[in-house]
């Protein structure tokens, strides 16, 4: 039996003028799955989500929600999903409570007593005063309004675009709790974020996006497997043999008290071979740091960051040179 995925994106492309925002993106979320959607600002996360919501029209590829076309069947599909943007703007002359009710009613949910009780509970948990006009809310409070409205309705799929931006850690914890509740109720979640710890806390699976393309996708454990473990050890023997092993990278040796300090990264798949080779070297101390999602992230974005820094430096130098030239 095949299950219809909650989200199914194939080879999605979208450009704005000359800017290629999405370039052959693939993404799938199965029913009951909590998928993290990771990438830095400008990678194409919000564009993907807007295509999913039928707000932007894709140039090429397909995007489906529950098997339906996101553009053509938008209204029908939106009855089954709920969306929280990363920067919520509300109707300034409505109160927070009115905004929440309005959004719930647009979803087609009649105001039943159960819904009321749920609203009271959510307002209490998120510590939100619903009687204030939306124009007086801070960014965090506007975010809370959208979150309360989202968790108020029984959507099958939560599409969350950096939903915790502006929330304090306590409120993030409340948010995490409600996501877990949604998971145990069998709902699906697409959680876009650039906060790794948040994704590590609640997500089963992760898709990493870079320049509009998915560069990595899988369960958190799978992905950790792909990454490298950092090893620092002090050994009595000659570590040259270890350096020759496949899967050992960036090996550096320095003289240390009564031995040689050696640091290197190793592919997790090769860690058994490396340990065997190390054990022959009179190991005096040994530290291995397990890979974090952050390492994973940095592996994909490290060169981007380097390039950005280089560009920034060049720009700064250029500006300095310009100033000098101007001074002359």
């Amino acid at each position, binding site marked *: 039996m095949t299950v219809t995925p909650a989200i199914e994106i194939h080879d999605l492309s979208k450009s704005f003028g000359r800017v290629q925002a999405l370039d052959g993106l693939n993404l799938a979320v199965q029913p009951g799955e909590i998928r993290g959607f990771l990438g830095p600002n400008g990678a194409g996360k919000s564009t993907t989500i807007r295509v999913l919501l039928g707000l932007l029209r894709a140039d090429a590829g397909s995007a489906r929600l529950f098997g339906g076309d996101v553009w053509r069947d938008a209204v029908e599909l939106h009855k089954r999903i709920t969306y929280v943007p990363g920067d919520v703007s509300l109707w300034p002359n409505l109160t927070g409570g009115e905004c929440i009710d309005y959004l719930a009613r647009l979803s087609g949910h009649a105001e039943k007593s159960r819904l009321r009780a749920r609203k009271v509970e959510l307002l209490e948990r998120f510590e939100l005063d619903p009687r*204030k006009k939306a124009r007086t809310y801070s960014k965090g409070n506007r975010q809370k309004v959208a979150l309360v409205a989202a968790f108020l309705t029984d959507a099958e799929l939560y599409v969350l675009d950096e939903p915790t931006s502006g929330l304090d850690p306590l409120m993030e914890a409340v948010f995490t709790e409600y996501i877990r509740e949604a998971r145990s109720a069998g709902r699906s979640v697409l959680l876009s974020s650039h906060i790794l710890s948040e994704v590590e806390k609640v997500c089963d699976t992760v898709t990493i996006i870079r320049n509009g393309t998915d560069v990595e996708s899988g369960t958190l454990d799978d992905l950790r497997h792909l990454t490298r473990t950092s090893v620092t050890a002090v050994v009595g023997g000659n570590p040259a043999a270890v350096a020759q092993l496949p899967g050992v990278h960036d090996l550096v040796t320095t003289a240390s008290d009564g031995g040689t300090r050696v640091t290197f990264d190793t592919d997790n798949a090769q860690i058994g071979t490396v340990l065997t080779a190390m054990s022959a070297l009179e190991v005096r101390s040994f530290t291995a740091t397990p890979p974090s999602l952050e390492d994973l992230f940095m592996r994909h974005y490290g060169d981007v960051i380097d390039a950005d820094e280089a560009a920034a430096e060049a720009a700064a130098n250029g500006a300095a040179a310009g100033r000098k030239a101007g001074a002359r």
Partner: protein
Amino acid sequence: MSAAVVSPPVPAVGRPAFGATLTGTGRMVRFMLRRDRVRLSVWTASVVFFYAYFVVALGAMGDEALAGRALIMETPSGIAMGGPGYGIDDYTVGVAIANEGITWMVMALAIMSILHVVRHTRGEEEGGRSELVRAGAVGRHAPAVAATITLLIVNAVIAIVSALALYGVGESDLGLGDSFALTVGSGLSAMVFGAIALVAAQVTEHGRGAVGISLAAFGIAFMVRAAGDIQERHGSALSWFSPIAWAQQMRPFVDVRWWPAALSVVAIVLFLLLGAFLGSRRDFGSGMVAVRAGRADARATLRGPVTLAWIQQRIVLMWCVLGLGLMWYASGTLLPDITSMIAEIPENNPVFAAVFGADTSQFTTAFLGVMVLFAMLCCAAYAVVMGQRPKAEEGVGRAEIALAKPVSRQRWFGSQLLVAGLGTAVLAAVSIWGLWVGAVSVGYEEQSFGDYTEVLWPYLLALAVYLGFTAALYAWFPRVAGIGWALLIYTFVIGMFGGLLEDLPDWVHRVSPFYWLPAAFTEEPEASHMLGLTGVAVVLFLLAFAGFRRRDVPSV
């Protein structure tokens, strides 16, 4: 526990010196002037320009026309819109400026003063910027005092430059002393409202509230002065309760006296003291009156995009209905007087002849037609503004939130346009019928209610074209939806001056939606024209919906 730890001596804080709550005022004054240099320069230049313009425009009228003008200024509506009527028997340019201009100059300067004071006191507190400033070595009263000082500087500059402009442009017909009496009196009167705004800024928690209270104070002053002056020429006792009267009662260009200015000065000082008293007794960021909490739950009627669009547009609509309704009502009351006045103009004025026609017997209806044209241009402007509401919604991301719900694009867009369209229609009806009510209330009954309604409905079709045009622009080229204004300006220029520019090709006229309408009160609408306008409006709306359906949101 060890007793060996000796804390370093903490320098004692002495008693604050006198005036410590004003520390930093000088720096803030310089900062405010720097920050507002463009804004304040524009205000100054505009006010000076209008003073100069009035001198030139009134001077060009000639003595006879001025005498005619004086007659209008003796009617109740003339007094309400003008002044107490000093020197009305010898209506010179200076007298006219003082009698008719002071109310409006005080209004302009009062609005400037109110906005300036609230912006730099409550507005800054509300925006959180004041918190940074007050955390520095800045006294509690410094922002308020600095706002007052800068306001005084600006009003002084405006008064001096305006007086010199009056004296200069008036070719020495206007005495320097009288000119100063006029501008200084108006400035002081306006400063009273600035001082009221300072008190209001202590009382309310939000800047909008403070502005609202202060503008309401001006509105009351306006009505008190008008009511007082209508009772008695040169003002009754009631008039003297209004700060506007204090400027008018200086009688510039008639028999100048300076002592009424002292009333303004006393009032300013009293309000400033009250403001300081209240300011010392409240917490930073809070007001004296707590903001009322709103509803925790939405009304049952807030179910869909139509209700929401109505909630968003109703405040603006209400103010427009009130403002334009009153304005056209007032214009209606002036109708009999004005028509008799303009009857004397066209013989030697080709511009007027082109606009109103050369046949003097038709002046009443021709003039009424021009008023209707103006009224409907205002409504078209409302349609253009409201047609761009969806763009604002899209720009800030609220459209996205709504469209992510099971709300189709047509439903969302249609709701916005429906409320905008109905609002425009209401505004048009209030304007046209307002003219009728005004005219009837002074016993001018040449045209019946039915005649006015006959004029109204073809205009509704034309107004739909403006809304449809703006909507279609927004749907297809959201970034340049502002081009909707171009059609309006085109209509205005062609409608007002098309007759002057001879030999224009026909199509130049036909582009204007108003071209297809019958001449107000004289012609019957032509069925083919009405059908054509309807067709164009329908096509534009269909285009708008088709365009909005297929494009990316957001793309503004």
